[in-house]
């Protein structure tokens, strides 16, 4: 059990920390030295391609899988052993598939889950049952995917958890349903001051609700920062030439991608771009434009597509 003093101490440090985390499954390296820090109180978007290690990371953090090497800490504690029980007591988790017990009715699984959480929010339970229009006597097997997701969210949000860990919370939902779930999440976080760590493929929804993001690729963190800082740092620089664009080689640090197409060269920079801009101006283009980039651009640039 955490003492009051421990709870106070861990509140100042990242809620989630991993250092050099490796996980090998039957010859496949799912995580390859993952470093991650999730600040307390943040809404942290965890991005990556399919198979990049997002779900494995979450499983390690919740003690469902053991790391092969490296360290993972949640609330300052290791997820394995008895501390894992305390971590899970303070953490609400929604899995990608939202698979629950098909043989239970909605009311049964709510009562079942409630019994494990002393800080269960009965008021929120009633509120979300109404909001999500979940019928207590309906068997889970008969629920649509959207209703299952809502039920899984209810079971997570009512736990009184300090940390919400959500694996693809809106996967498989139509845009209206996804928006409803996101709004419930944002509303909950605003009211409860908890930390949210969620993985997603939906870059638009990450931009909509996250204040921090990490992008992982092949089991390693390739980008991790506050979303505003990322937006401020990354720039797209476009050079247009009178004739065909010349072959260029940019040496300034922070240059990510150089694309040459006809008269146009596009450069993605991740270091405010001053040095890159200076260097590129040296090529004397007929027009020169610096513009902000979206999270999608940063994501696509950060994850390698070649195998």
């Amino acid at each position, binding site marked *: 059990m955490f003492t009051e003093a421990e709870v106070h101490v861990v509140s100042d440090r990242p809620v989630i920390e991993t250092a050099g985390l490796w996980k090998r*499954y039957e010859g496949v390296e799912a995580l390859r030295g993952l470093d991650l820090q999730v600040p307390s109180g943040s809404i942290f978007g965890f991005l990556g391609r399919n198979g990049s290690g997002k779900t494995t990371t979450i*499983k390690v953090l*919740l*003690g*469902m*899988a*053991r790391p092969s090497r490296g360290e993972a800490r949640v609330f300052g504690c290791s997820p394995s052993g*008895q501390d*894992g*029980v*305390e971590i*899970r*007591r303070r*953490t*609400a*988790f929604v*899995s990608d*598939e939202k*698979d*629950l*017990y*098909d*043989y*239970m009715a909605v009311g*049964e699984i709510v*009562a*079942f*889950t409630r*019994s*494990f*959480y002393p800080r269960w929010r009965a008021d929120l339970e009633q509120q979300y049952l109404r909001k999500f229009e979940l019928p207590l006597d309906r068997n889970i097997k008969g629920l649509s995917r959207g209703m299952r997701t809502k039920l*899984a969210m209810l079971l997570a949000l009512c736990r009184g958890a300090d940390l919400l860990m959500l694996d693809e919370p809106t996967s498989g939902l139509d845009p209206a349903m996804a928006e409803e779930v996101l709004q419930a999440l944002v509303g909950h976080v605003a009211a409860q001051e908890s930390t949210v760590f969620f993985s997603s493929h939906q870059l638009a929804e990450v931009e909509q609700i996250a204040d921090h993001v990490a992008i992982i690729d092949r089991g390693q963190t390739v980008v991790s920062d506050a979303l505003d800082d990322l937006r401020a740092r990354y720039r797209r620089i476009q050079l247009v030439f009178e004739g065909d664009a010349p072959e260029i080689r940019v040496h300034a640090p922070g240059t990510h991608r150089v694309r040459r197409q006809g008269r146009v060269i596009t450069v993605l920079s991740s270091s405010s771009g001053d040095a890159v801009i200076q260097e590129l101006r040296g090529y004397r283009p007929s027009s020169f434009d610096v513009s902000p980039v979206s999270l999608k651009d940063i994501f696509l640039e950060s994850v390698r597509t070649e195998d």
Partner: protein
Amino acid sequence: MLWHKAWLETRWRFISAVLILTVMAGGNVYGWLATRALLPQLNTTTISPAAEATGLGSVIREAVELNKTFRGYIWYQAFRQNLTQMGVLFAVVLGCGGLVTESTQGSALFTLSLPITRRRLVGTRAGVGLAQCFAMAIVPSLVIPILSPAVGERFGLVDALAHGLCIFFVGAVFFSLASFLSTLFGDIWRPMLIAISIACALAFASLVIPQLRIFSVMSGETYFKTGSLPWAGLLTSAVIATALLYSAAETLERRDF
């Protein structure tokens, strides 16, 4: 509430098992009327020399002798055959499933996200399963003394409980075996087939190696013949069942999901 989950997962298997075994036990009691009517027609001298040579003759003679009394008939038909054989089958069926099976159905991650240890999960499921095995052994056994007056006979309540206890202890071994195998395989079929195959192998092996006569312990043969419970066999069964459940917990503890 974990026990409630374990109950919901297994309730139909358990209810089916108790119903079938109870009907079988009741059927055995009422079958006494037909057996009693047939007894005078049985002539043990018709056993062929070939059957005598293989030892089958003595088996047939033993069966005829046992069926001459209601107590012998019930032990032979119910406790030695039906309740023992079907008890093993249902104990295996009850032991199959659990967290690894849940992982193939998808709900294991929800279970594993709860603030409980895997040992508690295994322990609760084993506790519920063993309680079901106990009821599965005792309820059909008690039906026999309850229904016996209907065929003009009596069967001791204590005798029924003693035999039920023997069925439970050995049934617990097969329940635990299935539970252990269920931590190795994600489906329920392989644990079921392997456990039943082991039971069949033990039945055949016991014909050659008397120390493996686990089904003799299960039927309470010693109790039927001497009036004393097979304590060594029951203790051995309890130790094996505990070891298998411990192994199941250890295997699950080390497993990645």
